[in-house]
């Protein structure tokens, strides 16, 4: 997409043509010097034919070996070809060195140079400082020596940027500018110098909205890769935390970081992860969720095989267990793998809260995950097939409530479930000012009126409501989606075959879960396969001082987490003789 920026509402047509003609000459000269006849011809016709310009761009873009021209005018013309004469690109011409002065000069006089950058991508303050340093530099660079000498000389002496790199190809320069670098071109030097000035506004670090905790750190990830890496590094301050950077997306050029702990995470795991990420050839990756679909083990499943989290403490915890994290620039959701099903009922808070409370809460989560999955179908199966399992008095109450309900129980359940899904989806997507009306409509129409009108029975409403609330108990959103989807086929099975259908559906679900793997780790570990050593952190959480080994489901290089004898004990009291 072209971004045109001009205060006057558009460049006058004549001016633009004039500019194109000027660039055309420069570009033609460049290609003549290189001896590329086809490009030369196209460059000559560029000013009169937009089609020729497009063709030329195609060629230039594909030929990544084109060198940086030594003439600044040619540089400017080529960059304008690259960026399509876009007004967003700034090509600032400067003079390096003050000319004859008190200091001894390596070069003779002021040398013309130019800094090219996209002002919309640059951090203005940083850019200003660098320009200031360049303009106030005493000496001019030596021009005409060995290739790149002048550029290296300036880079080493006069640019106060933390990182610079020499650029020999015009393609690299254009790419660098697009990624937020500023590139310094020096008249007569066959190389350019790129330095990072990327910046601009971004969201401040704030509390995660989706994974809230009562106790524990409140920071959440933001959309910047660098900030996210900072948040992780701050928690694991050790050189063994490795970050490997990759780029994904032909057009978006999204930076993707794979972070892991070198002596804990298995190298084969990281290699596999990087192999899968490198394999991805798409035009763009805008969020980690998009990348996730490319790198999962089994695409045909509704269960998230990779855990996504907005919380740096969860990522740090995962890294310590020998998992690796995938951070995608532009996404506050960091992927953590390998992950297992039981991780979905874990909240980061579980590790900061006292363990008896956590055991209770996790037990409730497992229970209600089952309720969320099975409650409506169980209700249908029991009332329409297996009435013998319901206590007589309860059955009589249900019968009285169902008296006069026109639908079969399955249909009733389906209608109510769908009704609830409507309320939920409406509530999620609508502007927050309208939130009230959804709850009023939902409560009144679906709850009160439906019963009053005798369309649905009260026990069914109770079942659906409990199910809906149970779903909300799970800390991981993607798990709740899986449960919500699965509820419907189970409901149909229960309506057709009763407990037989439920048992078959449950067995098929179990088989499916057992056949899943997340980067080689069985998804249902530590239950299938049964790993008794891992049971301490499943729906239980044993005290931290008892957790001496890392989870066995994820294979690590080093399984030892903590030393022996960490159980808190009163220490010896020196010289007090026992009395307090």
């Amino acid at each position, binding site marked *: 997409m072209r971004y045109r920026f001009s205060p006057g509402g558009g460049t006058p047509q004549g001016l633009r043509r004039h500019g194109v003609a000027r660039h055309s000459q420069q570009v033609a000269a460049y290609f003549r010097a290189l001896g590329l006849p086809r490009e030369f011809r196209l460059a000559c016709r560029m000013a009169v034919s937009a089609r020729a310009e497009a063709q030329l761009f195609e060629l230039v873009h594909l030929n990544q070996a084109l060198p940086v021209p030594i003439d600044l005018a040619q540089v400017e013309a080529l960059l304008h070809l690259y960026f399509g004469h876009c007004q967003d690109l700034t090509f600032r011409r400067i003079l390096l060195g003050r000319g004859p002065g008190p200091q001894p000069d390596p070069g003779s006089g002021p040398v013309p140079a130019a800094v090219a950058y996209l002002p919309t991508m640059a951090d203005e303050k940083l850019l200003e400082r660098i320009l200031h340093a360049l303009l106030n530099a005493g000496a001019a660079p030596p021009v005409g020596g060995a290739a790149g000498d002048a550029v290296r000389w300036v880079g080493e002496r006069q640019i106060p940027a933390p990182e610079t790199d020499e650029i020999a190809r015009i393609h690299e320069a254009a790419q660098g500018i697009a990624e937020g670098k500023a590139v310094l071109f020096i008249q007569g030097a066959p190389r350019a110098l790129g330095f990072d000035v990327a910046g601009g506004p971004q969201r401040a670090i704030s509390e995660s909205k989706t994974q809230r905790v009562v106790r524990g750190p409140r920071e959440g990830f933001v959309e910047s890769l660098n900030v996210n890496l900072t948040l992780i590094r701050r928690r694991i301050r050790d050189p063994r935390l490795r970050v490997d950077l990759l780029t994904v997306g032909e057009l978006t050029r999204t930076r993707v970081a794979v972070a892991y702990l070198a002596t804990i995470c298995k190298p084969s795991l990281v290699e596999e992860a990087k192999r899968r990420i490198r394999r991805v050839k798409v035009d763009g990756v805008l969020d980690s969720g998009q990348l996730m679909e490319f790198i999962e083990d089994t695409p045909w499943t509704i269960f998230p095989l990779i855990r996504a989290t907005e919380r740096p403490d969860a990522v740090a915890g995962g890294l310590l267990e020998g998992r690796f994290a995938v951070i995608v620039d532009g996404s506050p959701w960091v992927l953590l793998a390998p992950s297992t099903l039981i991780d979905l009922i874990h909240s980061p808070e579980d590790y900061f809260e006292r363990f008896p409370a956590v055991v209770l809460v996790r037990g409730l989560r497992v229970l209600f995950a089952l309720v969320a999955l099975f409650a409506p179908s169980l209700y249908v199966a029991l009332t329409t097939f297996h009435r013998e399992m319901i206590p007589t008095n309860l059955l009589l109450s249900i019968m009285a409530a169902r008296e006069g309900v026109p639908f079969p129980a399955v249909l009733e359940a389906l209608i109510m479930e769908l009704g609830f899904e409507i309320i939920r989806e409406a509530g999620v997507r609508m502007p927050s000012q309208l939130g009230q009306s959804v709850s009023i409509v939902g409560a009144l129409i679906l709850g009160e009126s439906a019963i009053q009108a005798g369309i649905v029975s009260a026990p069914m409403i109770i079942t659906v409501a409990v199910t809906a609330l149970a779903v909300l108990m799970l800390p991981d959103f993607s798990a709740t989606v899986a449960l919500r989807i699965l509820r419907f086929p189970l409901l149909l099975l229960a309506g057709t075959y009763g407990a037989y259908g439920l048992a078959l559906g449950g*067995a098929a679900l179990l088989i499916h879960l057992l056949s899943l793997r997340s980067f080689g780790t069985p998804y249902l570990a530590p239950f299938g396969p049964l790993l008794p050593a891992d049971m301490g952190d499943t729906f239980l959480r044993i005290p931290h001082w008892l957790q001496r080994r890392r989870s066995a489901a994820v294979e690590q290089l080093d399984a030892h987490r903590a030393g022996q004898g960490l159980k808190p004990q009163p220490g010896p009291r020196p010289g007090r003789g026992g009395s307090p």
Partner: protein
Amino acid sequence: MRQARISHQQLAALAFTLHFAATELVLPANLAKTGQSGGWLAPLASFLVAALPIALMLGLLARRHPHQALGELACHLLGPFFGRALALLVALISTALTALSLRDVAEVIPVAILPATPLLALAVPFTVVAVYGAYCGAEVLARLSVFFVLANVVIFLLALATLSGLVHPLRLLPLYEHSPLQLFVAAWPPIGWYAESWTFLALAALVDQAHRAGRGLAAGAALATLALMLFTALSLAVFGHQFVADFNFPVYSLFQQITIGELVERLDVILISIWLLGMIVKTATHLWLAANAAGFALGMANERPLLPALAAVALILMALIPNLPWLFLFSTTLWTPFSLSLGLGIPALLLAASWLRGRQCRQPDMQA
């Protein structure tokens, strides 16, 4: 595709499921009929006669030829023709066992929980799930069987706790009414069921520590025997053997009597659900074994496409079984001699061939 491996504990769980799932409901009535009050002891005799020797022989085979499935092993020992013939036999028997398991389900479910549902409507979805299980492979089935073992332990303890007031331990005595021979008469049907275990050689070959495969098989069979004895004993001690003998599915009827407070009035549906899980594992494993052997016999690299075909064959076989009394008669009397002679014969044959081969191979070594 990565070669799936299971541990010997998982093999034990799988063997438990294969031995126990079908016997749990069908056999206790027969045991009470022939063994009377001592019928609960009979499975022990069957274990000693059939399951244990076969498990030991298979273990020995797996130890001598680690990680070789039945087909390869037979080809190696008996030559390609007999090897393929044996693989074909395994495929046939496993398909037949699949059909029998399917029929068990299709007979129990209408009697127990869904009175009006036609046979095929029950069998088809069950077969689909079993094919899916077989498609996922033995590793997944082995893991699934661990859940079945745990569920059985839980439900047995639950039954024991809730029924403890109704148990009359004296109803388990005397151990035999007329002569000890009675026990062996009662042990005859389970012998037939247990002798099927010779087809599990392909499973034994999957065990990561090959020398423990025999132990796993034997432990699984022992556990299954123990479980059958316990469930039979429990129903005998509550109902008395005369009443148990009149039931078709005494354990099911036993679980009908369980009431937990005013909350759960009957546990039979839960028992049936757990039993179904076991039957899915059993059916899927037999199907997997059949596909495995058939794939070898036909020289296929990937046997998965065979699964739906074999399942269809099993469904047709199942539909040919006339009715429940015939199924009972077949699986308790007609099947046993056939099954036992194959069960003891084929592993022994393979062992003998393996021993002969071993001697042939060793002699040149000694000369050198």
